């Protein structure tokens, strides 16, 4: 192991000191230019995952979601259908066919990707979502109106809604264990419990380096693609795999952030309110001219 989890954690604290010492120092990064170079990342090596689903249990426990006892998470029948995160589970593991010629399946854990250019943050009209300095996408249920535009916007189809809560429904998704990491100085619950070190938590920049090293060291084992390095502008969660990611249920996405088009247009129109004012003046002039003609 070139990189030890503990070392990485220390690195994250040393490098991301500012972020962690002052977790309330929020920076809106939806336009991208305020991304902290020390922001968190998580590297998921799908070749190591054995599908034990302990991460699912740990996540539920950490986030106080309704959960069965850990012993029941050994049930492999859940792999028969493709599951998605929902309002009571922020992460799920799915099983896919492995590389050709090999019998072993590939297990893929999914959760919020904590995008660098998050669509949910850009979409939310009341700013209930925020990419904080550490890179975690935080949700403020108090601001939320429940319009669910974040769910429409998310290219990974992650945010889930409490459709059966009549009074105070909220959007639910992975928090990157923000409180746990920044206040208790622990790894995210899923990474902490994983018996096979599938997940490596640390600075995103370091994880990218580590991922490249792993691919370079075992080019036959890995495909030369780090999922999340560039997808929709980059995500905090990064994946390594032995088969193309399209076969692992991860959406095939381009490198352009999905927020780019709208933010460009919005800014063009509202930067100095020039187009609305120009239109107002033009129409006023038209009104005046035509009135003159009439009288």
């Amino acid at each position, binding site marked *: 192991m070139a990189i030890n989890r503990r070392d990485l954690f220390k690195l994250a604290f040393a490098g991301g000191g500012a972020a962690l010492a002052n977790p309330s120092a929020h920076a809106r990064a*939806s336009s991208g230019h305020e991304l902290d170079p020390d922001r968190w990342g998580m590297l998921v090596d799908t070749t190591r995952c054995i599908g034990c689903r302990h991460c699912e249990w740990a996540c539920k426990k950490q986030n106080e979601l309704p959960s069965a006892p850990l012993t029941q998470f050994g049930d492999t029948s859940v792999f028969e259908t*493709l599951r*998605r995160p*929902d*309002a009571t589970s922020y992460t799920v593991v799915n099983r896919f066919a492995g590389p050709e010629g090999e019998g072993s399946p590939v297990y893929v854990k999914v959760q919020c990707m904590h995008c660098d250019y998050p*669509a949910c*943050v*850009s*979409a*939310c*009209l*009341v*700013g*209930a979502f925020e990419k904080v300095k550490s890179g975690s996408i935080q949700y403020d249920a108090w*601001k*939320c*109106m*429940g*319009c*669910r*535009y974040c*769910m*429409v*916007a998310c*290219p990974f*189809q992650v*945010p*889930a*809604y*409490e*459709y*059966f*809560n*009549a009074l*105070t*429904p*909220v959007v639910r998704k992975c928090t990157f264990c923000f409180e746990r990491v920044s206040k208790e100085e622990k790894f995210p619950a899923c990474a902490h419990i994983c018996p096979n070190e599938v997940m490596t938590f640390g600075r995103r920049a370091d994880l990218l380096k580590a991922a490249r090293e792993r691919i370079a060291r075992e080019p036959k084992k890995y495909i030369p693609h780090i999922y999340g390095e560039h997808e929709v502008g980059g995500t905090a969660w990064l994946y390594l795999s032995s088969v193309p990611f399209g076969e692992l*249920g991860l*959406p095939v*996405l381009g490198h352009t952030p*999905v*927020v780019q*088009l*709208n*933010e460009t*247009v*919005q*800014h063009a*129109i*509202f930067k100095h309110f020039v187009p*609305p004012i120009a*239109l*107002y003046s033009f*129409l*006023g002039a*038209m*009104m005046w001219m*035509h009135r003159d*003609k*009439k009288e």
Partner: protein
Amino acid sequence: MSHAEEALPLEKPLFTPGVFLLLGLITIGLGFAVYRYIFGLGSMTNLNDQYPWGIWIGVDVASGVALAAGGFTTSALAHIFHREHFHAIVRPALLTAMLGYTFVGLSLMVDLGKYYNIWHPILPSMWQGNSALFEVAMCVMCYLTVLYLEFVPILIEGLKGKLNLPAPLDRLRGPVESLLKQGWVQQIVELADRFFGKIMFLLVIAGVVLSCMHQSSLGALMAIAPYKVHPLWYSPVMTLLFLMSAVAVGYPMVIFESIWASRAFGRKPEMEILTPLAKLIPFFVGAYIVAKISDLVIRDAYVYLFDGSFQSMMFVLEFGFGVLLPFFLLLSDRVRRSPTGLFICAALYVILGVLLNRINVFVVAYKPPYAEGPYIPSIGEVAITVAMISTLILCYRVIVSILPVLPAPEGEEGSHAAKA
């Protein structure tokens, strides 16, 4: 600016079989709404984590906004470009827009999970300028205010002697009349009249600007989901296409509504206004057609046209029958002069060209990456949408019976003054 002598309240009994039908539909919808507020959205809708938006957004909100475009397009025509000929249709269009936007808000009260937070976009601490939805929300709120203010002169005119109180409201006639005879009430009405007469031009322009802004922003909503919206509709210029189709639907909507109202109220359709108005439609629809086809060609999206998918069929229905067909039909002078022909053309564009377009963009074209099946609206969702539309029509019916909105039928002008 106001052509007061031309508009009069409708002198018809309020309770007709049609009104009872509307009341029935509203009651059914209310039942489902109560259920929704007690048991949550999931209990009576087919909305889920894959399909967070359904027909309440596609029909009630997106189409509601688009079909209210008659308000700003006619007021621009009559008040900004001073085409005096068209004054008679401004008030009904204004009322439709006012009610349309009010019901957009009401529908959101049903659709929003935390409906009681609907006012949050007002708080500057929550402003999020990157969001297209924020722009829509702000503009809709401002425009709704402008619409209510634009409607005030009609109310004033009513209070100044053109108020009609059909049964069962006629019991109020005595108290209302004695109140209106009070000196201070008359002073307030007079003051308001003069005030609104002075600022009306500002409101009219503001209404047009705000409309252009949010009609286009509504098109930007789905632009954030390039991987989810079918390529026949997803386009970087959706904003422009939404604005152009909304501008183009203004006059067809006014015509559709005007002929329908004439039939319903047993009047002669006002063809002397509607035919010249229809002459303008091909310019706007034509511009939209050029933009839409160029967009399909430039993006190479036309390849999806005939792939036999549900989406492709819906597109052909929308664009072929809802846009191209009425465009070509309206080029004919004979169609424009015939009430039936004009009504069919206007209805095609309103219902297939724009209503279906908004449903297509927000519902049919939406393909989430992990869809387990298509979204089909539940009975409850349909019932609530139907109830919303019914309430809107009922409000229209009640308001035109009380206030001078509709143009006076021929030969009746002035006869009303004696009654009031």
